[in-house]
C-alpha cells in the first residue's frame, strides 16, 4: 500500500479508530492489531511475501530467546551467526542472486569462457533490506546484552513489521522501538498534532517536490543524448531534490503516522542539503542506515581507532556496503566508492567532525563562507547522485561528459520555473526549522493559531495545486 494512495487514507482512518477506540483497553490486543494492520499493509502489495516477513521475525525472536538462555560464548556466537546467515541469506537471494550470476558470467566471458548459468525471475520483496536490517540489529543487540530479549512474540512481530516504517524505514533499533510495544500507550495530543504536521510536510515533499522532479529527471536521464550540458546539470540537480523529497518525505510520513499511534521513531533526515562538508552530510542523510552501519559494521571493524590504513579500509567497507545495500548494480557501488573518496581526506586530516553543530545556529543569516561550503558539498553530492540514478556506469560517464562538453553554456532546454520556486519554498521552510525534528515543527507559531492554520491550509493548497497524483512509488521501495 502506498502512502500517497486513497487506500492508505482509508486504511489510516480505520486503523486509528480501531487502535484508540476498540482495542485500546489491552496492550496485547493493541499490539495484535498493529501486527494485523501491518501484515495487511504489506500484503496489499504482495501477500506472497508475508511468509518471508514472518519467517525473518520468527527466526530472530527465537534467536533472541536462545541468546538469553545460552551462557557458552562460542554457542552464543554460533547462534548469532545463524541469525545473520538466515537474514542475509534471504536478502542475498532475493536482492543479489541475479546480480552475482550475471557478473560472474560477464567476468568469465571476458576470459573467453561462456558459461550457461540461468538467472531466476526473482521479484524483490518490498522493504526486505529494511526489515531484515531491523531484525538483525535486534539479534546483535541481544547478543551484546544491550537489550533483554522479549518473550512477547506479538510485540516482536509488531516491532519488525510496524507498518509506518516497514517498507522504507527509518530502520529502527530494538533499544528504542521494542520497549514502546511493551508499555501502555496513551494518546498524546501534542505528539499526534505534531505527527499530523510532519505527515503533511512529508506529503508536500513527496507529491509536490519529488514526483514533479521525477517527470523531468526521467526525461533527461532517459534521453541523455538529446540534451545540452546545462540541461543535464539541471537534471542532476533535480534528481538530488527528487531523491531527497521522496525519501525524506516518506520518512516524515512514517514518523508522523507512528506518532498518531503514540510511537516515537528516530529522525532519519536532518536537512542534509544544508551540510557544510560530506561528513556532515552523512550525519544528516538516512541517519538510521548510517548509524546502523556505524554501530554494527564500522565499530566492530575497529572504527577509526587503528592506523591510517585501517581507517581507510573501514571507511571504504562502510561506503561500499552502503552503496551495495541500495541495489544490485555497479552504479550504487560506484556511488559508495565516490563518497568514500570524498570522506577519507576529511577523516585523515581530522576534519570530519568539524561541522557538528547546526549551520548558523541561533542566527537567521549564514556566513558567506558557510554558503560556499554548503554549495560545494551540494555539488559533490549531486555529482554522486548521477551514478546513483544512471542505468549503468557507462551511462553515468556519458552523462557527466555531456555536462561539460555538450554546449554547457547554451540556454536550458527545460526550465521548470514553478518547480524551482517550490523547491525554493521547501528549502526556505526547512532552513527556518533546521534545528527542529522536521520542516513543519512550527513551535514559534504556537500562540498564533490563525497564522498556523493559514499555513496548514496553504500547504494543503500547494499540494492540491502542484501535486503529482500519479500514485508514483517511493524510490526507496526498490532498495
Amino acid at each position, binding site marked *: 500500500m502506498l502512502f500517497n494512495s486513497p487506500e492508505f487514507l482509508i486504511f489510516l482512518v480505520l486503523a486509528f479508530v480501531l487502535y484508540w477506540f476498540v482495542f485500546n483497553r489491552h496492550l496485547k490486543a493493541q499490539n495484535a492489531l498493529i501486527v494485523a494492520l501491518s501484515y495487511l499493509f504489506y500484503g496489499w502489495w504482495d501477500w506472497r511475501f508475508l511468509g518471508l516477513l514472518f519467517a525473518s521475525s520468527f527466526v530472530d525472536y527465537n534467536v533472541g530467546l536462545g541468546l538469553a538462555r545460552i551462557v557458552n560464548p562460542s554457542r552464543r556466537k554460533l547462534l548469532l551467526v545463524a541469525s545473520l546467515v538466515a537474514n542475509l541469506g534471504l536478502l542475498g537471494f532475493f536482492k543479489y542472486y541475479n546480480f552475482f550470476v550475471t557478473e560472474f558470467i560477464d567476468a568469465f566471458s571476458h576470459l573467453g569462457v561462456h558459461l550457461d548459468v540461468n538467472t531466476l525471475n526473482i521479484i524483490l520483496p518490498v522493504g526486505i533490506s529494511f526489515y531484515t536490517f531491523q531484525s538483525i540489529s535486534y539479534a546483535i543487540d541481544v547478543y551484546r546484552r544491550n537489550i533483554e530479549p522479549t518473550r512477547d512474540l506479538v510485540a516482536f512481530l509488531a516491532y519488525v513489521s510496524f507498518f509506518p516504517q516497514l517498507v522504507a524505514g527509518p530502520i529502527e533499533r530494538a533499544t528504542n522501538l521494542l520497549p514502546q510495544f511493551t508499555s501502555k500507550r496513551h*494518546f498524546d495530543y501534542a505528539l499526534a498534532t505534531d505527527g499530523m504536521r510532519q505527515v503533511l510536510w512529508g506529503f508536500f515533499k513527496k507529491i509536490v517536490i519529488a514526483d514533479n522532479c521525477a517527470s523531468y529527471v526521467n526525461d533527461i536521464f532517459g534521453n541523455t543524448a538529446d540534451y545540452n550540458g546545462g540541461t543535464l546539470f539541471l537534471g542532476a540537480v533535480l534528481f538530488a531534490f527528487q531523491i531527497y523529497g521522496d525519501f525524506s518525505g516518506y520518512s516524515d510520513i512514517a514518523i508522523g503516522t507512528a506518532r498518531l499511534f503514540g510511537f516515537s521513531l528516530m529522525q532519519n533526515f536532518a536537512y542534509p542539503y544544508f551540510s557544510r562538508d560530506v561528513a556532515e552530510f552523512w550525519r544528516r542523510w538516512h541517519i538510521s542506515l548510517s548509524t546502523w552501519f556505524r554501530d554494527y559494521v564500522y565499530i566492530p571493524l575497529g572504527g577509526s581507532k587503528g592506523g591510517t590504513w585501517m581507517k581507510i579500509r573501514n571507511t571504504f567497507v562502510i561506503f561500499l556496503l552502503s552503496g551495495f545495500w541500495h541495489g544490485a548494480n555497479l552504479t550504487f557501488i560506484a556511488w559508495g566508492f565516490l563518497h568514500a573518496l570524498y570522506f577519507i581526506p576529511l577523516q585523515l586530516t581530522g576534519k570530519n567532525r568539524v561541522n557538528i553543530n547546526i549551520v548558523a545556529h541561533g542566527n537567521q543569516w549564514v556566513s558567506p563562507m558557510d554558503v560556499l561550503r554548503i554549495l560545494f558539498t551540494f555539488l559533490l553530492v549531486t555529482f554522486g547522485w548521477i551514478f546513483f540514478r544512471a542505468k549503468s556506469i557507462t551511462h553515468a560517464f556519458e552523462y557527466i561528459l555531456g555536462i561539460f562538453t555538450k554546449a554547457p553554456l547554451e540556454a536550458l532546454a527545460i526550465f521548470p520555473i514553478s518547480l524551482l520556486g517550490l523547491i525554493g519554498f521547501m528549502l526556505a521552510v526547512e532552513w527556518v526549522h533546521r534545528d527542529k525534528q522536521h520542516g513543519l515543527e512550527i513551535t514559534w507559531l504556537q500562540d498564533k493559531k490563525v497564522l498556523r492554520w493559514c499555513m496548514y491550509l496553504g500547504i494543503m493548497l500547494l499540494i492540491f495545486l502542484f501535486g503529482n*497524483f500519479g500514485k508514483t512509488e517511493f524510490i526507496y521501495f526498490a532498495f
Partner: protein
Amino acid sequence: MKKFLLKTVLITCLFVGLLTSGLVGISVWVKRNHFENQHTEGNLLVIKPDHHYDLAFMGISHARMFSRYANHPKVEAILGKDILNLGRGGGSCGVNEQLFYLQYAYSQGVKIDTLVYVVSPVLMYAGFLNRATDTFNSEPFEFGFLWQYLRFPAENKQVRIWSYMRSKFGPHWVRTAPDTKEVMTDSLTGLDSLVVQQGFKDSYKDGFNDTIFQYNAQQMEATIALAEQHNTAVIFFFPPALFGQWPGHAETLAYFQKLGKPCYDFSEVIKEPRLYYDNHHLNSEGVMLFTEGYLRAVLGR
C-alpha cells in the same frame, strides 16, 4: 483525543469548503459568459439539460472541426438540424471518455435523434487517448459530473480528476471566454509526406495493439448500446484526409461495417490541399463543402 479529532475534522472541512467554494465560484464566473458549441471545447458549457437535439457529433478533433471556427451554426444551417458536438480534440479524449460524455448528456435529460460518430482509425489504436489526463480541463466544475465520473470505469481516473479540479484554479480557465474566431482560412498547397510520417509516428505511438483495439471496440459497442437505449440512431463515418487513408484503415473499416450500422467511408473524397489547414483537418471552406456535398446526402434535411 476529542480536541484532536475535532481539529482534524474542522481543518479538513475548512479545506474542502474553501476548495469547493473556489471550484464552484470560478466555474460560475466563467459560465456567466454565454457559450455555444462554436465558442468552446468544453461540452458541459453547452449541453442544455432536457433539450432535444436532432444530431450529436462524437469523436476526436475530426468531429470537433464541425464546430470550431464558427463552423457550428453554418453546419447546422446546411443540415437543417439542431446539433450538439460532444467531440473532443487535442489528443485529450479517447473512446471511453466519449462514452462518458454521452452518458452524462443523457443523464441531463438530453434527447438525441441521431448520433454521428466520426471515426478516425487512430481513435481505435490509440491507448494514450484513454490515458490522457487533461480530458476535462475545459469543463466547468460540476458536482453531478464529478460524482458520475467517480463511478465510471476509466484508466488514469484519479489523475484525470485531480487535473480537472486543479485546472479550475489556473489562469487559463479563469480567463476562459467564448472563442470568437469567425473562420479558419489557413490552407495547404500540397501534401508534406515528412509531416505526415511524423504525424503517424505520434498518433500511433501505442503501435497496432490488438488489446487496445479490442478495448476501444468494447467501449464503442457500449456507446451504441447506450444510444439505442435512448432511442438514438447511430451512424459512423470516416472523415476525409488529404493523404486519404490512415494506417489501420482497412481493419477499422471492416470492424465498423460488421457492427450493422450505417457506415460511410469519406477518407478519400477530398484531395484538394486548399481545403485543409493541415493534412487531416478541413478548413472552414472544406468543412462547408464536405457538409454540403457528402454529409447532407447522408443526414440531410
